[in-house]
């Protein structure tokens, strides 16, 4: 138990570091790939994906917005006016300060309180940026977890077939028909009893990653299984089997690479879905605690003040969440249209 605790408490910084590393690698690749690996870069630049991307204003726009949001969220310790995690930033005197341009705003304190303050007097913009980072970390982490789970299960089911497949896919069906939100709430309730509310709040990020990952793997499993079934019929698999390659090798080296394109396509949309689920959980109060709010929990706290007229605590984080999810979804749509894999219809 203690070890588990230890591992889990390290998850968040690790994921943060990983995300920053991935992001900087991406930029490095964008900038330096041209010179370092001209062949690979050329192949990538000539691909159908890039070609269509260049001609698609919506895709370009959403990638641009997404990149800005990603950078802003992971760079929040440096660009946010205040640190909302610092207890010193709580100032109840400033609670519910309206945005700077409104009456009662604090234009002389800029850049702090541009968008006003939340119910505890934290600068809303900073809290939103930190909250977006939490949402993104959970979304990406959960998708990594569900991808690993789903791909493993989908491959196993699709390749082995028969009883194993029936069992696993029935499980996926049941879980899907319950909807990921409900399953996530159930798993969350179990975790909460297992850990106790205090440590649940302390470990909220890794726990939410686990919850959402466990709740959403069926999407991947189904997609992978569907393409495994399609691939299995093809002759190269038959050939590999005739040659006498072991099953795991056929699965990993021959079938898996061919299932990756639909997996990639659903991954973008799944990140959006995972963030949506996280927001839902946090809105219900089962997710991130107020001390470390995600966008969902910010909307939740703002809800109480909406009726009394302090609309900004809810509307700004909500709008940010919508823009974030929308840009991811638009990119996902673009990928789906271009790669056009036969996805499982269950969405």
């Amino acid at each position, binding site marked *: 138990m203690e070890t588990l605790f230890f591992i889990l408490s390290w998850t968040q910084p690790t994921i943060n570091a990983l995300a920053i590393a991935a992001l900087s690698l991406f930029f490095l690749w964008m900038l330096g790939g041209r010179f370092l690996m001209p062949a690979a870069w050329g192949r990538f630049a000539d691909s159908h994906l890039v070609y269509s991307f260049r001609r698609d204003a919506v895709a370009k726009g959403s990638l641009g917005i997404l990149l800005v949001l990603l950078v802003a969220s992971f760079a929040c310790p440096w660009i946010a006016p205040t640190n909302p995690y610092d207890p010193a930033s709580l100032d109840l005197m400033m609670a519910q300060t309206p945005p700077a341009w409104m009456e009662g705003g604090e234009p002389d304190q800029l850049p702090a309180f541009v968008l006003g303050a939340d119910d505890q007097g934290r600068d809303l913009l900073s809290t939103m940026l930190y909250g977006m980072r939490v949402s993104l970390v959970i979304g990406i982490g959960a998708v990594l977890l569900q991808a690993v789970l789903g791909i493993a299960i989908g491959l196993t089911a699709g390749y082995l077939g028969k009883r194993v497949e029936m069992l696993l896919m029935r499980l996926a069906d049941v879980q899907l*028909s319950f*909807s990921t939100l409900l399953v996530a709430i159930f798993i969350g309730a*179990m975790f909460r009893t297992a850990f106790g509310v205090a440590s649940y709040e302390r470990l909220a990020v890794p726990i939410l990653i686990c919850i959402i990952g466990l709740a959403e793997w069926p999407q991947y499993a189904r997609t992978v299984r569907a393409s495994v079934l399609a691939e299995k019929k093809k002759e190269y698999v038959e050939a590999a089997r005739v040659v006498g390659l072991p099953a795991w090798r056929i699965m990993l080296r021959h079938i898996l690479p061919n299932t990756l394109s639909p997996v990639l396509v659903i991954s973008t949309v799944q990140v959006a879905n995972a963030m949506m689920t996280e927001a839902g959980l946090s809105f219900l109060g089962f997710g991130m605690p107020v001390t470390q709010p995600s966008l969902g929990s910010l909307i939740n706290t703002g809800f109480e003040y909406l009726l009394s007229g302090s609309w900004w605590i809810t509307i700004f984080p909500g709008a940010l969440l919508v823009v974030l999810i929308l840009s991811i979804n638009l990119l996902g749509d673009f990928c789906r249209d271009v790669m056009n894999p036969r996805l499982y219809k269950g969405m």
Partner: protein
Amino acid sequence: MIAFLIRRLLQACIVMGVISLIGFSLRHTVGDPVREMYGMSVSAEVRAEARERLGLNDPIIVQYFRFLKNAVQGDLGNSLFYQKPALEVILSKAPATLELVFTSALLITLLSVPCGIYSAIHPRRLLSRIILGVSTVGVSVPVFFTALMCISLFSITLGWLPSFGRGELTPLFGGAWETGFLTWSGIKHLIMPSFALTSIMLPLFIRLVRAEMMEVLQMDYVKYARAKGLSERRIYWVHAFRNTLLPVITVGGVQLGILIAFTILTETVFNWKGLGGMFKEAVDRGDTSLLVAYMVVVGALFVVVNTVVDVIYGMVNPMVRVVGRK
């Protein structure tokens, strides 16, 4: 047909078995029946005696079958908070949720079919692009945020619609079912929650109908129908739509079941006294029996919906019908 029905029922039973197993293990690990009966402040002896009396020291398998036997007889344990049988609590809350879900499902069906078909037939027209654009935005807005925006606009700013509760209710069936459909106030209260609930599923349905319809329009039999000189209306509505219906029913059935899960968010925002709100409170209060009961009831509901959907599918699809007849 009968063989098909029996097979479906058997599958439904297996699924219910799985759900009961999960429910039992939830109750076994998370819940504490003794606490549910006596609260926290009782001595260890009373506790031990109660455990023995409740059969909590029996082998797990015996306990499971006892749980199953009780569940089949409608006894899903007592709610800690309400101090009533959990099933009774659920049944009293169910009409509110069912009315909400029914209204949304109706709206979704009525809107998604024409929108999806129109945008499939005329993919390049401006209206189709608007429909698709709006539905992409719709998918990206969390249901609770839609709900909050509605309240902010229609209740707070404009003051047109009430923001919480169900309004004036009319008892039906000797008070077992309280409906909001029959009064103006009830309907006014229903507008925003059902709109919010609709907003989450409608885009998915429009896309589903559109994708299926576009696929069907590519088929040879549609071209053939044109070659026979049939009218556009007949080609679209009889030849293409009938074939679109089959996959839409299967996927749609499952998705409509998911609406029930989204009532948790909607009902919380609008303070709608239904199953969703009850579920949220039960999680907050640690009311395990009620949670498990909710899961079993909702699970049963899903299974019923899915089975009905499959049977409808079987009736629409001539292939299943005939295979079943043999």
